């Protein structure tokens, strides 16, 4: 498969050669070690293992992948605009990473459970999360705007990599469910995906999660989007070898895939999830991609990277290469692309409308959700707050009357 670099041989000069090769592979053109099916030119190549998975994608499914990527890019533009207009406190753009997210998310099945970090808006779309609800967190009306029980898409986790351990624990639960159900269980086998990035790969929790996953052979797929920048720090500060190589040290497969190739991402993730569901243990996927925009709307990439690097990655755009392929193979026509654009605008309008309508919560809800069971201190502080707030009741009325009277 060409998915691993050869192990470093500690025999003198070979060490230096290996370091040089690794350094090149971390930031440079990694094609030799990377699964790619659909190139930037829109031509579909082959892979001895993954072409079988790619061949399962029907024309309708391929059009669907394009439509999803276009929708989430349109959503990203709209959310960025909402932030600029003061409707959101912050936005975390995903542009450039559409294929990595849509491809992997669409490879998952409903019974699988997803632990995202905080940029996986594309994966959220594939799990049927209401995208307007996704904005709650960034508007400051909730720390988790959707119910994970409904979509098997967990809440965003902002402390980097903490969720990778939750994912492994959840997968350990799936293993135990299967044993408790015995052979008569009729639940479909499930797996877990843990998303994280190249920056988070340095966190200790990623290491611990991979140790636990390996030790217990847990059905979990580690999906690392290597988007090359952890805010302002490039990947070669996080690692001196391709991140996918790290799997070897834990004893499970590691695959680097072209993260801008939605067909390859889908194929590799589908294979990895099957592998996990069949009880064969974890897989690490490194999706080699690029954060075309800023880390967040508070970031300024011009301070740490050159625009020619961004231009080079724009030439590898995930949407345009699939469009080329769909048109060349006559799988989609102008009417399809026009419809995708219209649907995107409709989604943007819906999101804008809903974001405006998101009501501010009441702090009483915060009191209610500190604990699941009754708690005397929370009750006491809430009672104090109610009494305190009641003291202002008359004043608010007076202020409202004054405003009405035009004072």
């Amino acid at each position, binding site marked *: 498969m060409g998915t691993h670099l050869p192990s470093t041989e500690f025999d003198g000069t070979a060490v230096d050669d290996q370091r040089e090769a690794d350094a090149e592979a971390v930031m440079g053109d990694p094609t030799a070690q990377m699964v790619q099916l659909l190139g930037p030119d829109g031509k579909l190549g082959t892979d001895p293992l993954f072409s079988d998975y790619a061949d399962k994608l029907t024309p309708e499914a391929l059009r669907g992948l394009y439509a999803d990527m276009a929708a989430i890019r349109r959503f990203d533009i709209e959310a960025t605009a909402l932030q600029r207009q003061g409707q959101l406190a912050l936005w975390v753009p995903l542009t450039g990473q559409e294929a990595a997210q849509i491809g992997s998310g669409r490879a998952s099945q409903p019974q699988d459970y997803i632990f995202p970090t905080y940029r996986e808006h594309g994966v959220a779309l594939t799990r049927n999360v209401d995208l307007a609800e996704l904005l709650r967190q960034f508007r400051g009306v909730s720390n988790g705007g959707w119910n*994970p029980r409904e979509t098997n898409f967990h*809440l965003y986790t902002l402390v980097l990599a*903490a969720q990778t351990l939750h994912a492994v624990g959840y997968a350990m639960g799936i293993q*135990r469910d299967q044993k408790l159900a015995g052979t008569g269980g009729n639940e479909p086998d499930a797996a877990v995906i843990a998303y994280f990035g190249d920056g988070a790969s340095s966190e200790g929790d990623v290491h611990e999660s991979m140790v636990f996953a390996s*030790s217990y052979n847990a059905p979990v797929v580690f999906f690392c989007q290597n988007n090359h920048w952890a805010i302002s720090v490039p990947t070669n500060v996080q690692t001196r070898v391709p991140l996918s190589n790290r799997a070897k040290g834990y004893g499970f497969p590691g695959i680097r895939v072209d993260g801008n190739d939605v067909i390859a991402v889908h194929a590799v993730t589908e294979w990895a999830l099957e592998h996990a569901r069949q009880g064969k243990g974890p897989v690490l996927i490194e999706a080699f991609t690029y954060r075309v925009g800023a880390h967040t709307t508070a970031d300024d990439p011009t301070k740490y990277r050159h625009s020619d690097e961004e231009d080079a990655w724009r030439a590898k755009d995930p949407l345009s290469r699939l469009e080329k392929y769909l048109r060349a193979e006559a799988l989609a026509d102008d009417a399809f692309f026009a419809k995708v654009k219209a649907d995107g605008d409709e989604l943007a309008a819906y999101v804008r409308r809903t974001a405006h309508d998101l009501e501010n919560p009441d702090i009483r809800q915060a009191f209610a*959700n500190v604990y699941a*069971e009754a708690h005397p*201190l*929370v009750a006491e502080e809430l009672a104090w707050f109610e009494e305190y707030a009641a003291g202002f009741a008359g004043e608010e009325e007076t202020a409202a009357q004054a405003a009405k009277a035009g004072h």
Partner: protein
Amino acid sequence: MTTMTIAKAINEGLRATLAANPKALLMGEDIGPLGGVYRVTDGLIGEFGPDRVVDTPLAESGIIGTAIGLALRGYSPVCEIQFDGFVFPGFNQITTQLAKMHARSNGNLTVPVVIRIPYGGGIGSVEHHSESPEALFAHTAGVRIITPSNPHDAYWMIQQAVECQDPVIVFEPKRRYWLKGEVDVAGPGPSADPFKAHVLREGTDATIVAYGPLVPVALAAANAAEEDGRSVEVIDLRSISPIDFDTVTASVQKTGRLIVAHEAPTFGGIGGEIAARISERAFHSLEAPVIRVGGFHMPYPVAKVEEDYLPDIDRILEALDRALSY
């Protein structure tokens, strides 16, 4: 009634929980064939197997983090942290994830994880094996903290912690693991609510509040004071978060004087919180300032001087004298 040690009572409580609840499981370092460094899980892996008594990799963040994932899948994990000072690699998972998950999900998710931590000094051990970090966790909304001082409470509290839908940290007084006492396995009786303080000894001149390893010390101090004609009430706090302020307030309204004793440093500690709340709730009943007896503002000292660090009977009696001198 059965007589057993605190360690054995926790062992029996865990056994009862594992037998009654198929979704309960134990996780920790060396808790399998070894039975834990204090043998609290002795024999359980033989009865319930390695899927339910899980020897984990040596990684505390990993233990807490995977326990959160198991809880999200519907399990009730009980994590053992080997020693108090080793909880800190897991501190991030406890404070940023475990404690906040219910609130973050607007009440949609519960994470009923139990964390057992042997705590406190007096065992002559090396660094990181004698600490009392409970205040660091009490400051974190979303977790509950309980600490047994006797075998009966130990037996029931561990089961009550597992039943609770909130995360619960159980601080176990490690130097009292071998303290024997009566356990009623038929029912908790007055220990039905793990978050309620117990008045262990009635008195009229002053109140001593203690918890965990210092409860026997407080009782001994009260007995010694009685020989001097002082009538001292002793309260076993039992729950550190929430704190049963009603019971403490009622006692202070009767005695007018309050001493709070814990092994943890007094600065920023549980005693300070109790002093502040009681001064608000029972200001007019207080005849003297609330006096704290606890550790000093220093890293837990080496074993050969821990006797000078740990509150003992005389330190509590000295505080009592000061309170009564007002």
